[in-house]
């Protein structure tokens, strides 16, 4: 007698609920403990600590009352980091250190080396994003069913690279288009079980809000530059001989800091207005098995989330990053819903090769080092 025979009919489907159930104990104690153990082990425990944080966060996300599961391990993260460090970071680091010492005299050569290094870094960054996501999805389960990201990293990395290079050339106008393009590249290949997500979003609706972000960035930059120049330049009036005695007094520095800070704050709020629209729009264009997602972020709450998370991270010197991570996830989950019932029985197990005990090189390169 198989389990399938004793399948009890699921209750008539209401819309699947996505909820957040905060873990008992929260994340503060865990953050501090991880920090301590990290120091005691010269940083090695970091990967196990990160894993436990992810387990806790995943487990707080409930669909129809049952939690997501994170099956990644600390050793996988550590292995991935070592691979990336010794094959990529260390050689690059050595080159950047040694090259100026050995060939620093020739500026043309050095410029070529630097450009090459930047291109390599950007490409690897794209690969890293894809691989990290693939790793995380492949280690995510719900009711035992795996999620996954199909496709190879190379096309994604290529798209990432050339769209990044176009950002300065288009003075930033490509950003919404790029966001939609990259989001699509990732989501259309994202699976839960053997069924894929579908993303139908376009960049057009984004531009309606983006233009204001772009204009305000320029305006703020000009305003801040003239204001700062005014503050600094004030010390040059009235002196006829020699440089001023005190070009930077404390009150001038304070004024400059205040101006820049205010400008950043204003820009952050405008950007949040745009981001909120982008997140909600992307979610509403994403469907799974015909059911549409719905995300209801609002600008004030988003601004508060970003600002408070930034403070949490910087004031704790990243020690309390898990708290920020959990808050950000909770924020999304609390506002995320799925319209319509999903036919869970129609979804089979993800066919991607399971991680076997003796992992192959391909698996080893499914790194999540960042």
């Amino acid at each position, binding site marked *: 007698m198989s*389990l*399938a025979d*004793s*399948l*009890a009919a699921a209750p008539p489907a209401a819309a699947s609920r996505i909820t957040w159930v905060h*873990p*008992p*104990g929260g994340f503060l104690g865990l953050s501090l*403990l991880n920090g301590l*153990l990290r120091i*005691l*082990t*010269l*940083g*090695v*425990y*970091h990967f*196990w600590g990160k*894993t*436990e944080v992810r*387990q*806790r966060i*995943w*487990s707080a996300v409930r669909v129809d*009352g*049952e*939690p997501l*599961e994170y*099956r990644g391990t600390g*050793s996988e993260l*550590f292995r991935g980091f070592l691979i990336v*460090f010794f094959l990529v*970071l*260390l050689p690059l*680091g*050595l080159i950047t*250190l040694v090259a100026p*010492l*050995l*060939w*620093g*005299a020739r500026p043309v050569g050095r410029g070529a080396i630097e450009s090459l290094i930047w291109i390599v870094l950007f490409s690897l960054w794209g690969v890293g994003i894809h691989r990290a996501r693939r790793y995380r999805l492949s280690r995510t*389960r719900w*009711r*035992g*069913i795996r999620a996954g990201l199909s496709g190879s990293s190379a096309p994604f990395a290529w798209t990432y690279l050339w769209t990044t290079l176009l950002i300065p050339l288009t003075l930033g106008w490509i950003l919404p288009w790029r966001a939609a393009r990259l989001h699509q590249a990732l989501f259309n290949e994202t699976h*839960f*079980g053997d069924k894929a997500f579908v993303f139908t979003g376009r960049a057009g609706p984004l531009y309606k809000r983006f233009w204001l972000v772009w204009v305000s960035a320029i305006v703020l930059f000009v305003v801040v530059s003239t204001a700062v120049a005014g503050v600094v330049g004030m010390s040059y009036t009235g*002196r006829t*001989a*020699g440089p001023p*005695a005190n070009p930077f007094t404390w009150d001038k520095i304070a004024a400059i800091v205040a101006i820049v800070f205010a400008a950043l704050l204003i820009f952050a709020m405008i950007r949040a207005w745009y981001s909120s629209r982008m997140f909600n729009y992307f979610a509403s264009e994403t469907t799974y098995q015909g059911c549409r997602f719905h995300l209801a972020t609002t600008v004030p709450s988003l601004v508060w989330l970003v600002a408070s998370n930034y403070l949490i991270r910087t004031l704790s*010197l990243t020690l309390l990053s898990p708290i920020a991570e959990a808050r950000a996830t909770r924020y999304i989950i609390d506002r995320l819903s799925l319209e319509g019932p999903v036919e*869970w*029985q*129609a*979804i*089979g*197990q993800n066919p991607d090769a*399971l991680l076997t005990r003796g992992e192959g090189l391909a698996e080893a390169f499914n790194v999540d080092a960042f």
Partner: protein
Amino acid sequence: MSMPSDPTLYSAKLSDGRTATSLAAKARLGEAGIEIFPAGERRVALTWPYSELQSSVPLIAHAPDVLLSLKPNGSQTLFVANSAFSQGLLARAGALSPARQRLLGLRPGIAAVAVAGAIAATVVLLDLHPSQTVARLLPQQTREAMGHSVVAQLTGHMKQCETGPGRQALDRLARRLTTAASDKPAPIKVVMIDWALVNAFAAPGGQIIMTRGLVQRAGSPDEVAGVLAHEIGHTIELHPEAGLVRAMGLAAAAQLIFAGSTGTATNIGLLLTQLRYTRVAEREADAHAVRILKSAQISAKGFGDFFERLEPKISNPQTKTDPAKTDEGNKSDDKKSTSRGSRIFTTEILRTHPLTTDRLALVRAQPAYAATPSLSDDDWRALREMCGPAPVIAPRPGTKAAPTPGQPAPRPPVAEADREIAEATQALQANPDDAAQLQKRARAYTKKGQHTEALADYVKATQLRPSEAGLHVGRGAAHYSLKQYELALVAYDEAIRLDADNVAARNGHGNTNRALKRYEEARSDFDSLIKLRPTFVFGFYNRGLTNVDMGRLEDATRDFTSALGLDKDYAGAYTQRGLLYEKTGARDQAIADYRAAIAAPAAKYESGPWAQRVARERLKGLGVAAP
């Protein structure tokens, strides 16, 4: 140890891992494992042994729910939302607890610490020098290239001095020392940079940097030879290369340790510019130095003299990110102020070469041997002037007496000043850009009270030698005398920026602030001055005057008393203090002070005549006979 089975049936959700559905089930905590009954079944369909369970998060005693599967990759999952179940399960499957899980995760970390500790212990116990070994493996070309970069980085914007005779003198000295150093001397390149700071350091690839300040501060060529021999010692032992290798290694290790937790800054540039030497390195270099000096038949006394000349500080060397910046922040609290010149320039060398009494003792313990001077007189002069004419030493404190209210400065013999003006003018006709002559003439003009002419000369001199603090002091004084107080402040600020220990500059700055009625600033100037040079009598005198201006009579009295403690012949201080005593009603003390003022030598300070005149007047006013 197995616990009795718990007969309770808990509600659960079971998924088979083949589709994304879950069925209702019941679970029971059996003896050997969890017994699972799918809904409606009476028989146990599955038993999951406790030893093979894994949970989605480490299981705590009162977890409201738990999600279980079988190790290592079970796709079937069991979800039980009951804290009693969690508690019972934890008692039977202790491996699921957070402590046990974390312990598993700690194993690699502890292993890493053990390995690192073993490596460190090996290096220390076997007295290995890994960075030095690596440095030795580098080819000479690489070392020279590294050296070029380091030299460029540290001295980029400064001029290298290359006058012919000076260069030859320096090369002769270097050659004498390197041939004495070994039979196969490695090529050494000595670079002299036009920098007032006193310092010398070795860069990779046999390149040694010396500063103009060091050469001009030294009292004899033997002192320079000693320093150069010491630096050659560093080069022989490959200390600069090893230092760079060590810095890079540390940076890579830090990257490895901290890269996992982003946010820790590893500033490689910071490490690279820290050319600091350990005590061991210093000892080795010293040993080479005395050996080389002996072999070259140069007396080691000069080497010792040089370091004694720079007042030794046992205080901890401060971290410096860029030795190329002059240090305005270094206010040393040295109580014995024996040096006459600028102290700030000397501590730079001490920061990169920590001096201890051991080192000095070693150098001094060298037995005497036959020696010849390291450079001929001509070569020594050429070396000192390699970066241009040697500057005249800054005016000694005491000649810049505080201007007193109301009385113009008495004029010394005019004839001598005229002669100096004539001499200087003649010399300037031959070489109009001779800063030393300009300074001489400007001084003479000042003595004659021709401040406008003096100012013109000082301005030109400071344009020629902008890093010479003494010239800015002169310029400031000229502005002050012409009542151009704002400009005086600018000049004194520049002097202080160049030479934070320049008492004349600080004194002038304070006086100028006082003239501008900025009493708080003046007071703080004099506070710094006193802290800098507690034996400088004018610091106290001028601060006393400022305190009088601010109405702080008690402080002023204390200051004048301190001034008199430094010099009991200071008529001006007596009179000022007498005035204060008189104001506060201490009549007898006032009379005593006035009498002392009259008894003191009149010509010692510029305020002398004024002090005595006022003292006599006040005595008359008090109805006392003047002596």
